[in-house]
């Protein structure tokens, strides 16, 4: 048990928390937070893998660290778009939930009914 492995397991747990939060929370804003937690869990796993790849005097493998920076900015853009959609839904006065008022003919109810 060393640092990177510990943070790798922490990342696994974070992905689990985020997935649970994404599926269970009814409010869309909570689902966006759940998605962000999954994202940070994935990035933490990538960071732990980068740390394991430390060599040649570098603290960690630079390739995953660069991809992490790109990933964090992409995750932020996704959150910004989701929040903008949510605020537009709120401005329209519509009930801010994902269950549409006139649900189309519901097929079999499957678990991740977002």
């Amino acid at each position, binding site marked *: 048990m060393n640092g990177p492995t510990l943070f790798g397991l922490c990342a696994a747990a974070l992905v689990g928390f985020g997935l649970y939060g994404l599926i269970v929370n009814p409010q869309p804003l909570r689902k966006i937070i759940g998605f962000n937690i999954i994202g940070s869990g*994935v990035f933490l*796993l990538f960071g732990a893998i980068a740390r394991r790849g430390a060599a040649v005097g570098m603290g960690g493998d630079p390739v995953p660290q660069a991809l992490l920076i790109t990933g964090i900015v992409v995750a932020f853009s996704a959150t910004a778009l989701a929040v903008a959609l949510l605020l537009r839904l709120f401005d329209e006065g519509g009930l801010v939930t*994902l269950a549409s008022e006139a649900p189309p003919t519901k097929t*079999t109810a499957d678990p991740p009914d977002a």
Partner: protein
Amino acid sequence: MSPSLSAQNLTTLGGLLLVLAILVPFAGMLIGFVFGGGNAQRVALATLAAGLAIAIAIANALAQSGKAVVYILGGWMPPLGVALRADGLSVVMLLTVAVVICGIGVYARADFGTPSGVKEARAPLIFWLLLLAVWGSLNLVFVSGDLFTLYVALELLTFAAVPLVSLDGRTETVRSALRYLLYALLGSVLYLLGAVLLYGAYGTLDIPLLAARVRPEPAAWAALALMIAGLLAKTALFPLHLWLPPAHAGAPAAASAVLSGLVIKGSWFLAMRLWFDVFADVVTLPAAQTLAALGAAAILVGNVVALRQTRLKLLIAYSTVAQIGYLFLMFPLATGLATAGLDSAMAVNGGMLQAISHATAKAAMFMAAGLVYTTLGHDRVADLRGVASALPMTVLAFALAGASLIGLPPSGGFLAKWLLISVAITTAQWWWALVMLVGGLLTSVYVFIVVVRTLAPAHVGWNPKTTVPRYQQAAVLALALCSFLLGAAVLCPVDVTQIGRTVSRNTVLP
């Protein structure tokens, strides 16, 4: 490095065209964004023409060289740098997307032209920018050889497709756009999780290098399961399809054509690329059969629900859910061939033909539905009387597209089903053939219902609300004909889709 790998890693003649295929649409989008207003449309149409020429040039380069077109970006060799590769599958999809997007571009000139008085209107500008963005990201999905670049391509595709859904701003479309975005983001984050595990286990993200290193072990199984699950969420396969119908039906006609015809093909193509190229040694027949079982369920549920729809656009959207099921039937057939030691090219060709014929047919159908809506003022399936007299070419196009979806000869759908069914017989998995035939029957029911209703004579003294320009009907008919005459592909001598696919050739399992 084994010979087949070094061949994958040298920039070939047509390589630069791949970079152009990605950057021309995005550069067009950026320039259109600056000019704004009416000339964004002109920039977009010019980019459409240029992109079509590039796609044809790439196909020509592939046909002449006889092996995959490769470009090493920045001169940095793959484990460190990123390589773009286009084999037969990519080139066929590049051509299909180019043709369909040009058809949609011609069609959309009427719906999304900037009104004369206004300096810049919201919907037209946004539509043209997003159309180019969808095209650029799809080209990137087809040609990129690096898993993380593919992740960024998936995100680009999602960010380009979601605003298309809520383009007209109604509350219901904004809600379905938000639901679509949440599903798509969950899908791409699961895909990224799989890519991270692969990097952790094998130290590279390049597809050919991974194909050589991946072995059946926990990391590979987990990565396969997560990536395929993520891509299923983005392709809306059966249990994860809830976001598709309201999203695709709510969007304007041209946008629905882009979403249903092209956007879902991107994540499907990536799932196929992973299944046959990266995880060739890890996939097992039972895994492929669970995928096909979901596909079969999608076919049955999608078609049955489509039958009960009262609105034409929702009917076509649920038909998309069903047709996606067909795309996943090829996985057990190809894996079955591979495990039996035969060449899996036939099943892969069948799947590709199915995808191409669906792309063209579904785009034509949604655009036809758009024309019906503008002519009648509504799209209730119950009373489509008089549409045939008002829009003869459009109803013909709808019928041809429907025939291709059902699989009547000589359409592309027929050839695809023919190949898949013959492979199902040779690999003794007859039940997939049964599913395909039942699906074809169900599809034929609702296509005939719609076509027969449009042929009914109009009420006395009824005249269409608005006359639709002829070039729109011509565009719809052209796409439908592309799908209908795709069966002629059997005549072309060279098996285009298998060019440069050395990977699938030499992975003959014991």
